[in-house]
């Protein structure tokens, strides 16, 4: 059941000039989170900015077994993300969640390939933790502009995740888009081993990953980022063209039916 809490900022760690990790004391929300779900947050006072903004839950934080809160991986792109970047401990923000359809957490023998572009890393920390609990062999394909834009690598490694990195400028990992090493991995993979692919990042990247997965006959789940007005199915702003059976594509609300979709059902050419 989603809750709305006035969450206190516990810490705000700047990872680069644009990225930060914001830790919020919101145990009642955090303890319900499933991998791939999101929260709607609103920092600041006044009616401008007006609407909340959706953010994947990055980490669920624990003190021993007790859940204490959650973190967001934030990238500055506009007014709200700038505010989230500037917050200091003790500040408060509204935090509503958890919301949305989570990733399906697979089980052995299926393997998990998580494919992240930039801030698309966000949903994969919780997913990696859940996969680990089930002993799923997991690889993270992770691309960014350059080495300084790749974060939390050690944390993933510690969770037993194999890493394959790519950077636009080649300063770390393979040079180019994350789909470059991913395409190679698809070719190299044993046909007999089932693989489930999870992707989050720029739309063009998720589309390319979906096409690769289709070519290689792998299951693919994507976490889409549509503009959202409410996060609860009230406004019909967040629709995604989806084709689940024959007939024309239908516009479904990504806050209820997503943000995680079977990549094969998304009608990419009709997506904004």
């Amino acid at each position: 059941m989603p809750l709305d809490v006035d969450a206190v900022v516990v810490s705000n760690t700047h990872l680069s000039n644009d990225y930060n990790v914001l830790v919020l004391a919101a145990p009642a929300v955090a303890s319900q989170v499933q991998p791939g779900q999101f929260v709607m947050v609103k920092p600041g006072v006044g009616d401008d900015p007006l609407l909340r903004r959706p953010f994947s839950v990055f980490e669920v934080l624990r003190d021993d077994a007790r859940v204490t809160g959650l973190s967001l991986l934030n990238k500055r792109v506009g007014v709200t993300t700038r505010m989230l970047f500037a917050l200091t401990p003790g500040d408060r923000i509204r935090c509503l969640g958890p919301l949305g359809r989570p990733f399906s957490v697979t089980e052995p023998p299926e393997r998990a390939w998580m494919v992240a572009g930039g801030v698309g890393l966000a949903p994969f920390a919780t997913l990696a933790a859940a996969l680990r609990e089930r002993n799923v062999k997991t690889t993270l394909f992770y691309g960014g502009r350059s080495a300084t834009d790749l974060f939390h690598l050690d944390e993933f490694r510690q969770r037993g995740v194999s890493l394959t990195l790519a950077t636009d400028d080649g300063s770390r990992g393979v040079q180019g888009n994350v789909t470059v090493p991913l395409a190679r991995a698809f070719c190299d993979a044993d046909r007999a081993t089932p693989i489930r692919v999870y992707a989050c990042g720029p739309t063009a990247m998720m589309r390319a990953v979906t096409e690769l997965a289709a070519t290689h006959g792998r299951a693919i789940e994507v976490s889409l980022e549509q503009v959202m007005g409410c996060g609860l199915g009230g406004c019909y702003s967040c629709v995604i063209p989806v084709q689940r059976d024959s007939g024309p594509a239908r516009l479904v609300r990504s806050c209820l039916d997503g943000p995680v979709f079977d990549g094969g059902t998304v009608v990419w050419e009709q997506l904004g």
Partner: protein
Amino acid sequence: MSVDLSVDIAGLHLRNPFIAASGCFGYGVEYADLVDLSTLGGVAVKGLFLDAREGHPPTRIVETPSGMLNAIGLQGIGVRRFVAEKLPLLRAHGAVVIVNICGSTIDEYAEVARILDDADGVGALEVNISCPNIKKGGMMFGCSLQGTRDVVAAVRRVTRRPVIPKLTPNVTDVASFAAAARDAGADAVSLVNTFLAMAIDVETRRPKLSNVVGGLSGPAIRPIAVRMVHECRQAVDLPIIGMGGIMTTGDALEFIIAGATAVQVGTANFVDPFIWNKLVTGLTDYLQRHGLATVSDLVGTLDITDRDTVWTSS
């Protein structure tokens, strides 16, 4: 002191004056787990045509200063599926249901109204003649006095339910539209719907909304909406459901004092889905503090005793 929050609009009894605004609360059922629908004054469901509609492609909303533009395009399941699938659930949750009806033609409005008249659990019909997002229907009728009269009269003929036309603010004299609605048999009026508006992406030089223009809602429009409720109250003796940018109890009180018997809350529900309980508590407190026993003791009590004195310039 115990206070009575209930109000009556054209024979429809509401537990309190707070109604979820059409298009901002889905079909109501989306919120049933979060909010006890029976504690709301009413639920105005998303605008319904006779048939299912696809709506506009994304981008469908854009945030603007203290407001938002929407061009959803009335995506919807059509009135028959609504009656079959959603209405029974709303009834089961104890919601007072106001159905927002749309049409591309006068006949379509009448047909939608007729189907709803046969259905159980419809509290009132809100006749959407003011949606700025569709090419045919809607604003076409709502910006013409004759169109307003024609649609209202056609719906009036086929239903026993209260008929509540929803007026557009995109006109010179909104009170004349309230008067036209009354003359054609309306039981009350809702106002305002959204303001026709647009936003441009200056880098691409293209409209931010797929539909080019959309409707502006939210606190940005509140002062204009309050003025329009005040004008209608002064000009026409018909119950008013006021709305436009209500975010707090204080905002709702502005509409009630200006002349609204009930209010709708739209955009604010996106920002705070748990707003309903706060509104009820806030209103109860206010009435107690001001020694008022009922909401109707407050409706239209704006005091505009002339304060002007004569000044000379500086």
